[in-house]
């Protein structure tokens, strides 16, 4: 375990003291799991970068809600399914795909699919599908905590609710900043560069997680 610590410290996991605390709890613990879910989302740069990509060009609140609901639906299905059915997916492998989802969204944002492939997967479908992968990532983090079986469902639901609260908090900030930025004249030019950087960050995340998958 010690040899893996430096990697775990850097990877986006539920950290040592938090993990030991909830593992020491017996029975239902609604608030601690809710808090952990919210914290995981608010401090989760992989999920946050993806959300930035998703809402980058969404101007109407209605669209923000629609896209984020699809993402939420996707990640809730696999978070709960993964935990309940005890899917044993490799966390690094899933986190690699989550990194690629960031790059995908940025590529979509600069209209890459139509310019290069002349075809584009429905953006809403893509958000739902990548939501499923993000949920699998959440499930692996929750499974690391070796939940006690008797209150598994309630704790998992609490975690999921916490994730949505954290997501709402993060989104409010992201949407507010993007809204201010969008009003500036330079937005169109900077938007292209910003999505290029976002794509690069997605590649870096994917490369980092895939290296961890290969070598740890």
């Amino acid at each position, binding site marked *: 375990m010690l040899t893996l610590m430096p990697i775990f410290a850097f990877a986006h996991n539920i950290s040592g003291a938090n993990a030991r605390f909830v593992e020491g709890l017996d029975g239902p613990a609604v608030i601690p799991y809710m808090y952990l879910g919210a914290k995981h989302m608010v401090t989760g740069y992989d999920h946050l970068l993806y959300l930035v990509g998703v809402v980058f*060009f969404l101007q109407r609140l209605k669209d923000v809600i629609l896209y984020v609901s699809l993402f939420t639906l996707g990640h809730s299905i696999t978070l709960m399914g993964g935990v309940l059915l005890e899917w044993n997916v490799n966390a690094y492998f899933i986190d690699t795909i989550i990194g690629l989802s960031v790059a995908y969204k940025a590529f979509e944002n600069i209209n890459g699919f139509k310019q290069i492939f002349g075809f584009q997967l*429905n*953006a809403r479908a893509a958000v739902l599908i990548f939501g499923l992968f993000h949920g699998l990532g959440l499930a692996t983090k929750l499974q690391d905590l070796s939940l006690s079986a008797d209150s598994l469902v309630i704790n998992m639901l609490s975690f999921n609710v916490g994730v949505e609260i954290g997501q709402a908090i993060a989104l409010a900030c992201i949407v507010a900043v993007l809204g201010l930025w969008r009003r500036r004249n330079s937005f169109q030019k900077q938007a292209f560069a910003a999505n*290029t950087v976002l794509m*690069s960050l997605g590649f870096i995340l994917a490369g980092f997680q895939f290296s961890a998958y290969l070598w740890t």
Partner: protein
Amino acid sequence: MNSKTSDAVVLQTSKGRVLLAVLLAFILAAVVLTVFILPAEFNRDPLGLGEALGISGLSQPAAISAEKVRKEEGAFHQDGVSFQLLPFEFVEYKYQLSKGSSMLYRWTATKSRGGDASAVSFDFHGESHEVEGYEESYSEGEGDHEGGTLIAPFDGIHGWFWANHGAEAVTVTLSTTGFYTESLEFRDGFVKKQMLK
């Protein structure tokens, strides 16, 4: 299929700009990964740049454990002794420990008759072999027991002085384990050296 146009402002891009963006994103990611992340996090340094920047093996567990583990060639020893001290008698008992070697210890002082705890004066200290006449006190005072770990701060002999200032005979019982090689007992003006097996 094409719902995106209805939801979002689409950037006016061209094939060339998109290809350039992908290329730039990919090159930036590749540079960050090979120069920083792979050497620092995974100790893989394909270009040797991590070594040049001094970040190779930043997260290697070996670097951490080197501070926490001190390797010893020889076997460790265990020792248990007890001394009876009449009123106003004293004794000193020490171990040869080289710098950085460690020892676990625990001693108790009890009345020789009856076995109740009985305080003695003690001074846990070391005498250096490196600097002539240098002594350092680790723990001193009055008490009927003490236990702990010593990591020898210098090459020398390290141990206890116990004195009975009470009116009754006291028995001091010491047990230790550690990477020492010999013990020395100073009592009544004599030194008794003992190689420990």
